[in-house]
């Protein structure tokens, strides 16, 4: 249920469902995201995603016109898939629906079954489909539904048991995912990160333009998930009826552990404990040291942030994770807001602040920036924590903005921002402390050069 008292939405604090699915599909090797709908959806989402990652983001579309909207989009869907097969050489096509095709009632799974029959003589790619009507849920539902569809549709049989851990990281930055890969390597286990946008959305300069960016989770690694030691899903918020991890647990008995997005000491500890539980390997020294440095930094910097009042907004898991982090460094999160509606948002906020804050921050779901700003008037915040879209509000409130998550449209290097693990928290902490120092320095008549 939405907590907003208003009918209209002003400056939404969420994106639409198919965007999340398209971005998740980009994290599969050889995959092309394909939107079944009108041409504009793909183009708008490309522009939005490119502005954050500064990487090519090709999203194919079935480009329905008026005729197809009346008579059904099946022929365009089939033709479109044939075209991306021939021109992109895609080995996976991730088909996500849109509000248009859901409303006209296109039955995509049936159309795809027809397609496979009709073109069975061709070397067909894997086609994964997910229902993502934009009138239901947010980009995060789209993301998680796509991840569940990948696991549900591509993992067909029990793979040989091996020392492998599956991680479903949610929407975190390419830099975060590279860190995650290091962690898995240091634990000495194979990993399937589903999906993995660390390479595909942060490519080096290369000799040629890549039709499909290299990188992403391989099909082999996806199929191997059913033989893994277990799965770890990041993010406390509930998004879909059956997540990828739960699906693999139900069908193949792969143990599934859900932890929060590992931001800050406690949530990262929980992730490392889960890794230890699955692999039997204790936390490697490198991370024990990293944790030690993080604690040391917390101590050195605690007074700069003590008692500061923060408003946190964005997608649920990022908000919960940031509240967990802020609470443990002595910042007071006073409002946690999301555009999504989420069954366990409030309970999760209570869980990550328990024992530290006398009471959790006020939680509001289903709200937009108008709601957030209205409430902020009486809250006297010292800082805003969230993505770029809160900038104008931070400016109006004359407080700094700690940019986290997606999208980062007004700063350079969004894909290289780190949030997760002890190392990610250290970067966040440095940035946060420096925001307050900078503010103090700028506001001071003295012009301190030594703080």
């Amino acid at each position, binding site marked *: 249920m939405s907590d907003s008292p208003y*009918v*209209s*939405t*002003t*400056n*939404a604090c*969420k*994106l*639409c469902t*198919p*965007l999340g699915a398209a971005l998740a599909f980009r994290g599969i090797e050889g995959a092309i995201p*394909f939107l079944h*709908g*009108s*041409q*504009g*959806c793909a*183009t*708008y*989402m490309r*522009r*939005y995603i*490119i*502005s954050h990652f*500064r*990487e*090519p*983001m*090709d*999203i*194919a*579309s*079935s*480009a329905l*016109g008026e005729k*197809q*909207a009346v008579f059904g989009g099946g022929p*365009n*869907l089939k*033709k*479109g898939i044939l*075209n*991306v097969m021939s*021109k992109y050489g895609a080995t996976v096509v991730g088909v996500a629906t849109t*509000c*248009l095709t859901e*409303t006209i009632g296109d039955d995509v799974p049936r159309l795809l079954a027809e397609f496979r029959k009709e073109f069975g003589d061709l070397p067909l790619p894997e086609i994964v489909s997910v229902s993502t*009507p*934009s*009138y*239901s849920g947010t980009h995060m539902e789209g993301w998680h539904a796509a991840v569940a569809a990948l696991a549900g549709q591509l993992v067909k049989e029990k793979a040989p048991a091996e020392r492998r851990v599956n991680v479903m990281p949610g929407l975190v930055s390419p830099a975060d995912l590279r860190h995650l890969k290091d962690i898995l390597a240091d634990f000495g286990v194979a990993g399937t990160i589903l999906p993995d946008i660390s390479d595909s959305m942060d490519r080096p*300069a*290369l*000799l*040629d*333009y*890549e*039709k499909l960016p290299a990188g992403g989770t391989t099909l082999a690694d996806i199929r191997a998930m059913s033989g893994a030691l277990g799965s770890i899903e990041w993010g406390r918020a509930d998004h879909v009826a059956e997540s990828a991890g739960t699906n693999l647990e139900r069908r193949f008995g792969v143990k599934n552990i859900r932890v929060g997005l590992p931001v800050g000491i406690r949530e990262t500890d929980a992730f490392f404990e889960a890794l230890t539980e699955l692999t039997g390997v204790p936390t490697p020294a490198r991370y024990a040291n990293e944790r030690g440095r993080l604690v040391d930094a917390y101590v050195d910097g605690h007074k700069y942030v003590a008692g500061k009042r923060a408003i946190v907004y964005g997608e649920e898991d990022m908000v919960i994770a940031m509240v967990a982090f802020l609470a443990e460094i002595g910042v007071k999160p006073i409002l946690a807001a999301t555009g999504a509606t989420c069954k366990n948002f409030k309970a999760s906020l209570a869980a990550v602040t328990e024992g530290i804050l006398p009471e959790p921050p006020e939680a509001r779901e289903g709200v937009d920036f108008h709601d957030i700003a209205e409430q902020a008037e009486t809250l006297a915040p010292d800082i805003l924590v969230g993505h770029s*879209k809160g900038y*104008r509000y931070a400016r109006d409130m004359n407080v700094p903005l700690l940019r986290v998550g997606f999208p980062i449209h007004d700063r350079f290097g969004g894909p290289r921002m780190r949030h997760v693990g002890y190392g990610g928290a250290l970067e966040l902490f440095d940035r946060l402390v420096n925001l307050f120092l900078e503010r103090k320095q700028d506001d001071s008549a003295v012009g301190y050069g030594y703080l």
Partner: protein
Amino acid sequence: MEQAIFEERRDQIHRKGEGPFELACNRDSLAGAVSQRACVFCGSRVVLYPIADALHLVHGPIGCAVYTWDIRGALSSGPELHRLSFSTDLQEKDVIFGGEKKLKAALLELIERHKPNAAFVYATCIVGIIGDDVAAVCRDVAAQTGIPVIPVQSEGFKGNKREGYAAACKAMFTLAGTGDTKDISPVSVNILGDFNLAGEIWIIREYFEKMGVQVVANITGDGRVADIKRCHGAGLNVVQCSGATMELAKMMQDKFGTPFLRVSYLGIEDMADSLYAVADHFRDRDPGIVARTQKLVREELSTLLPELKKYRKDLEGKKVAVYVGGAFKAFSLIKAFRHLGMQVVLVGSQTGTKEDYEELATICDPGTVIVDDSNPLELSKFVKELDVDLFVGGVKERPIAHKLGVGFCDHNHERKEALEGFVGMLNFAKEVHASATSPVWRFVPRREAAAKALAAAENTPLAAGESL
């Protein structure tokens, strides 16, 4: 190489000089081709968006509103209502039971809150499908609130951007003719098809002021509802970006007899020619206008030309690719690049018309590739094949250029640099220069490889008997 081109699209590509000119266009985008085009809604939204004292309510699920929230550089000198993103954020139950009630409640709520001078209601894809009578709701709310509440029939799938432009023009046309036209000079214009990106319309308005021409309505950059209501009182419509607002100019000519001129404020000749054409139009009513215009152009050029020279020497001989939304911009860009000594070798647009492409074919150099409704695979192929040094486009084209080690100039609606007018030409030269001459390109593998190959070739002694 040829593999990058879809069979169905071969006739949407032409190389000047290879056979008689013919280019298929104005077609539905090919499914699966990753067109750079957007949709009908996008066309309407870009045209109407800069009207700063109107409420722009997007009726549909959240995506359409949120992806168009404050992304353009269209500035306002006063109210900034246009920079907010309003949506009915339709949910599943609205799709099942209809969204009319929610639309009405949202309109009343927002009009009460913001007191806009008009409201535009954009219909998105599913609104037509679920059968909401947007026009009826608009009439109802208009009667209740006393402001014009105008439906924009911009269902995304009903064509491409061009249909969206037309829908926007129809919406604005309902305002034209409803305002008071007293105090309007006979020597007056409406500026159509300029969106005041980075303050560009203010540059153009200043030129008109210096010429003694009154500007009645900005359509739509820094636009106001009251001005559009009385725009029929202007003596002339000057129409830029002809795809976007030409429909309005034609409707105004039919109904109010307002003549129109096609203009462009990009580059040197087109900017000067546009001002001269306006002066010429009014010379009978204001005999001094031609001299004033000449003086203005002379003064502007005397500062601009020496400055441009500095940039030209570094840019001479470089090759350019231009891929833009509407083709009109491409005409001016080709000419503007000639002033910088650069040659356009690839030119295309998302939504050009037959006439647009014919005109393009006339002004571009032999060998130039002309494309309609292109896509990343084709564009990257041509950039490599034609050895382009600089790409002009928008956000979606930028990574194509950068990945291939090619400079980039943002000439889209997101840009934050004023590129119109004489001063805009200088900004344009600076921007092109900054990117094309950057030292970073040498590190890009494709450039590095080319440089190595060249060095190797130069160091290879000629074999006996071989001659240059």
